């Protein structure tokens, strides 16, 4: 063995490297060899420290990216919720409930009626019934060509809930296609108060208002004519 290749304390220094590597593997990101000796072996010690530096940098970067992704996910979920809320608001605006005459509300529905819209309509209508104290609400779906079973269930729910509140919800303008959907669902059509046209529904509501008379008052006739 020549002096040029003599390495001081080789055994301890190798052990130290083993310990440092074990510490890093266990999660200690700060463990380094930090050899103060300058000889032929210190090149290895230094290289190992650099390696650990790179490794921990990679880990930190990965951690940082993970956190950023989590934050982005949270933001997106928040935005989705806001969008849902705005869509609901729009749906509510697109189905206005109007008070007609003394005790009758009308909600004309036009276009596609999906589950979400039906849900909004139901809540809207029931709220209006309670707010105005109107006993009759007419839900006119002449402008709705078809509905799926979920929407049919919502309509049934609306009628049942209106009754529970102490009001009555009449559905007018049911197309043959929709009638089939409702019947196929096993819903008893007689459980829902239905009329072919909105005018007939209003007439029914007016007549029910006049407990004693089976005729419409002059003003009620006027209203019906105006709607036509």
């Amino acid at each position, binding site marked *: 063995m020549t002096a040029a290749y003599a390495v001081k304390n080789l055994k301890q220094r190798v052990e130290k490297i083993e310990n440092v590597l074990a510490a890093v593997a266990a999660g200690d990101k700060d463990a380094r060899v930090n050899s103060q000796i300058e000889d032929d072996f210190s090149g290895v010690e230094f290289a190992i420290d650099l390696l650990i530096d790179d490794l921990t940098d990679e880990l930190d970067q990965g951690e940082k990216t993970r956190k950023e992704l989590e934050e982005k996910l949270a933001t997106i979920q928040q935005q989705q919720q806001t969008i849902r809320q705005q869509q609901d608001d729009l749906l509510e605006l697109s189905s206005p409930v109007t008070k007609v005459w003394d005790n009758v509300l009308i909600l004309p529905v036009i276009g596609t009626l999906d589950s979400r819209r039906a849900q909004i309509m*139901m*809540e809207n209508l*029931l*709220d209006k*019934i*309670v707010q105005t*104290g109107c*006993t009759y609400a007419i839900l006119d779906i002449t402008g709705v060509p078809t509905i799926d079973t979920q929407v049919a269930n919502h309509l049934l*729910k609306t009628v*049942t*809930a*209106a*009754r*529970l*509140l*102490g*009001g009555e919800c009449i559905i007018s303008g049911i197309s043959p296609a929709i009638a089939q959907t409702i019947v196929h669902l096993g819903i008893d059509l007689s459980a829902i108060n239905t009329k072919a046209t909105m005018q007939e529904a209003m007439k029914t509501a007016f007549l029910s208002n006049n*407990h004693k008379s089976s005729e419409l008052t002059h003003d009620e006739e006027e209203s019906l004519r105006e709607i036509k």
Partner: protein
Amino acid sequence: MNEQAANRKIPIIKIRDFLIVSIQVDMHDRLAIELQAQILEELSQTGAKGVLIDISVLEMVDSFIGRMLSGMASMASIMDAAVVIVGMQPAVAITLVELGLEMPGVDTALNMENGIAMLEKRLESQNEFYNPNGA
């Protein structure tokens, strides 16, 4: 909730031929049963023909309270009295329908005014000599 709150009774007021009960608190089961008994007792003592139960403040009616209300309607009808629930909140109505809780024999009205009109109409048709303005 303390002992005092637990024993608080819900007031029952008699106006003309009817009892009026306004439920202002979130009832625990025992209180609901006690209320039922109280109302029946009052009906028996006063001979009132109708009970108006105002639930406009109640934010929730679960299966127990629902059964209590329909139970009361059945018992009251045995005593020849009608029960009308008034002021149900829309969210409560929707939830009851979804729960699948039917309340048979329970009449409902949008408000006290309609409720009283409903009871008076029932009395009028039962008794042609009935005068809502007091004989």
